């Protein structure tokens, strides 16, 4: 058994875990992040939603009393957001937005999604039907069909043959100068009357900003990306930027190391065990931050009778029996099961658990109802920030 010691071990490499990692490394704490693999952030639009409504701040204030966003002061919300914007700007992945104002972005079916902070590539996304645009798409693209959009508004469409038909495949090709030049040449030859150009979100991975700027300059008018179904390129850009920042700050990432055991003395967790490279490893720390997400992320598992927290077996808040977990209406977005999770105190330590050095943040928290309130990434960002601060203060 190899043994490694840290100040803090974060379990989970999604938005909450990586945000917490940024806070902890900024404070000079020796921090490791253990993750079983790609986070759900890679499936997301890349936008940061805090809460649906005209103003995210006002909408958050109106959330039910038990919602975990109430654990964070307005000052801390701003601080978390500012930290995020700063990290993104440094990573050449500019984000825009303000907690006082929500905005809408166009979806791949021509509807709108309410969000708060958007990447530069979506800043020009229209918020109403009146704004005309020209849509550039790619031949055979599997998860993007312009007609879902043209059904709702007058849009002219041009199609480029990229030679591949997945979002990931096209994004990778855009990283090649030659491909980009060919694309720009073709684009320049189009007659486009509209003042705005839409494109599915495939404009490169690492060099997205440069490619995005090149397209805008070539066409001499604003361009925006439309997020697609997963694999989502903007979600992956966001994840990559946060991951690289954490590493640059000196954080260690144990990638593909699922936690399969814990070492406990009394009420203190001493270490987590993971299986990797065919042998067990012990990763010890003074404190542990649980950011494993909900069901999709892998933090929670349900059986026919119960819902289980997978790492520390923390008590889970369960909304009554399985027959009440879902409503009949699919579009309800308020199924009781979305309230399942871990309830925490003001310092993000699990309620009704004796463990003293475990902190919990992100989608695994109880009462989040992410789809109903539209608070996914915003919740992860702000609770990741606040839980990490509470953890750091305890350690000092």
């Amino acid at each position: 058994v190899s043994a490694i010691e840290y100040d803090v071990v974060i379990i989970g490499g999604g938005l909450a875990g990586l945000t917490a990692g940024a806070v902890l490394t900024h404070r000079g704490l020796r921090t490791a992040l253990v993750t079983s693999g790609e986070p759900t952030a890679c499936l997301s639009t890349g936008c940061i939603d805090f809460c649906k409504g005209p103003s995210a701040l006002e909408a958050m204030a109106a959330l039910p009393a038990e919602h975990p966003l109430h654990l964070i002061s307005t000052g801390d919300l701003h601080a978390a957001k500012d930290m995020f914007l700063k990290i993104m700007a440094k990573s050449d992945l500019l984000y825009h937005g303000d907690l006082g104002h929500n905005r809408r972005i166009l979806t791949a079916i021509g509807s709108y999604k309410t969000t708060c902070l958007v990447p530069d590539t979506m800043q020009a996304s229209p918020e109403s039907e009146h704004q005309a645009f020209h849509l550039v798409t790619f031949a055979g693209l599997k998860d993007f069909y312009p007609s879902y959009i043209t059904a709702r508004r007058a849009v002219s469409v041009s199609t480029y043959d990229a030679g591949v038909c997945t979002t990931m495949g096209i994004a990778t090709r855009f990283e090649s100068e030659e491909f980009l030049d060919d694309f720009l040449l073709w684009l320049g030859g189009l007659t486009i009357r509209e003042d705005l150009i839409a494109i599915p979100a495939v404009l490169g991975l690492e060099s997205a900003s440069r490619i995005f700027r090149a397209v805008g300059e070539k066409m001499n008018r604003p361009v925006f990306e439309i997020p697609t179904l997963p694999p989502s390129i903007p979600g992956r850009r966001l994840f990559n930027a946060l991951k690289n920042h954490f590493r640059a700050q000196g954080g260690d990432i144990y990638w593909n190391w699922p936690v399969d055991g814990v070492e406990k003395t009394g009420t203190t967790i001493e270490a987590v065990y993971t299986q990797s490279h065919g042998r067990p490893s012990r990763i010890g720390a003074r404190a542990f931050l649980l950011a494993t997400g909900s069901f999709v992320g892998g933090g929670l598992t349900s059986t026919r009778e119960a819902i289980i927290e997978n790492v520390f077996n923390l008590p889970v808040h369960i909304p009554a029996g399985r027959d009440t977990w879902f409503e009949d209406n699919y579009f309800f977005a308020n199924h009781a099961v979305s309230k399942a999770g871990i309830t925490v105190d003001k310092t993000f330590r699990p309620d009704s658990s004796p463990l003293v050095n475990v902190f919990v943040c992100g989608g695994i928290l109880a009462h989040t109802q992410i789809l109903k309130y539209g608070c996914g990434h915003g919740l992860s960002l702000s609770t990741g920030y606040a839980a990490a601060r509470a953890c750091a203060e305890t350690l000092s």
Partner: protein
Amino acid sequence: VIIIGGGATGCGIARDLALRGIGHCLIEKGDYAAGATGACHGLLHSGGRYVVTDPIAARECYEENLILRRIGSKCVEQTGGLFVRLPGDSKRFRERFLRGCDEAGIPTEILSTTQALEAEPNLNPAVEEAIRVPDCSIDPFRLCLLNMKTSQLAGNPVFTHHRVTEILKSHGRCTGVRTVHTVTGETREIHGNILVNASGAWTDRIAALAGCEVPVTLSKGSLVITNQRISNMVINRLRPPSDGDIIVPNEAVSLAGTTALSADNPDKIRVQPEEVDAIIREAGKMLPRFHSARIIRAFSGVRPLLASLKKDSREVSRGFQIIDHGNGLYSIIGGKLTTFRLMAEKMVDAIMTAFNLKRSCETAQKPLDGQDELSGYPLSKRLADLSDVVCECELVRKEDIVRTIRENGSCHIGDISHRTRLGMGPCQGGFCTFRALGILQTERMMTPNQSRRMLHEFLQRRFRGIRHVLWGDQLREEQLVEYLYLGILGMEEEA
């Protein structure tokens, strides 16, 4: 002849009429096998299940089992079946069962615990013994398609997605029907000399359109499907019929059921969570792996049975009856999937008598048409080119979808699923339906508005099938799909 109903019975009648040279058309309000036919196990009974309760039905089943294995060798999987006796199951029932099989001529073989486990390693090791019978599995939808193939080859028209709204009459005789297309709303009049009401659970409603009464008892049965095949053979419990006593393998999956609850309205049946739990509990006693299996869907069907005063619908006869309403309308009710051909034969015999024609039935001798095109589960063919795969779970390519629609002339997402298996895998169409509808728009086979509406309807219908089986990995997958549609695509905000 106008046939109303595209279940196994209606399709069987179409084939029989075609082979006897009688012009006809078939009208169905959904796709083929939309009622009880498509909502059953897909079990081609050996007859064993009925030998104790209904010896006549048992004998019919066995005879039809032999015929279908012969004429449909490529669409019947000769799995064989076991009746397993678990600790506590009545030995007296076992004796009655063996005697019944003997009397019905159903071959049996008694297997010891060791022999049973050798034949079916996933069986509960506590099994006391097992009796082998010639049960088989059959794909009910494919069975309908193959029967219709003969009808269509002879040039007879089919109207799927057409609902009968009126039965036309002249001088007291039924002379035709008025229909409405369920997607486009287009109406149509179809005329004929004889109308056959083979609408299963809807028989009384159709008969009422002609002012006739048919006494029908509806019995709801629910089933669950796993994402993989758990047994090679059909597994039955050796005891009087009760909940969750049959598990049928069908190609890559297993189905377990059923339950029996009385029902009123065939359009409003729902699976209840208690039924799912009961089926899994009982199926798990025979195949313990059922407890950990990933259940991808639960669904209910309605058995149309002859009305009876008996309380438990399992005791109602599974036999069938043909009613001549005396005005050109015939109703055929009861029966079961296994005996559909026999039912069709008797129905067409009556029609021939009415027309005063003589030509005997050939459906038991001639092999089903079109089997070569549909044979098996050609995975290797599907794996040849992966770049155009639309449904990753079932390896359905774009060209399969486009071809299916062109051949079928309809653009209902269900039609595509039934014919290609699109969306039948673990995600239950969560990813590929969005794509399939996008392709249909791009190919101009459907307007964008139609496809948006269909996506909405599909998601709601899909949820009804999976809502009661959401736990474990299936819940995890569903939360992801919900996030795609309601989170990324914002469908909830607009709903």
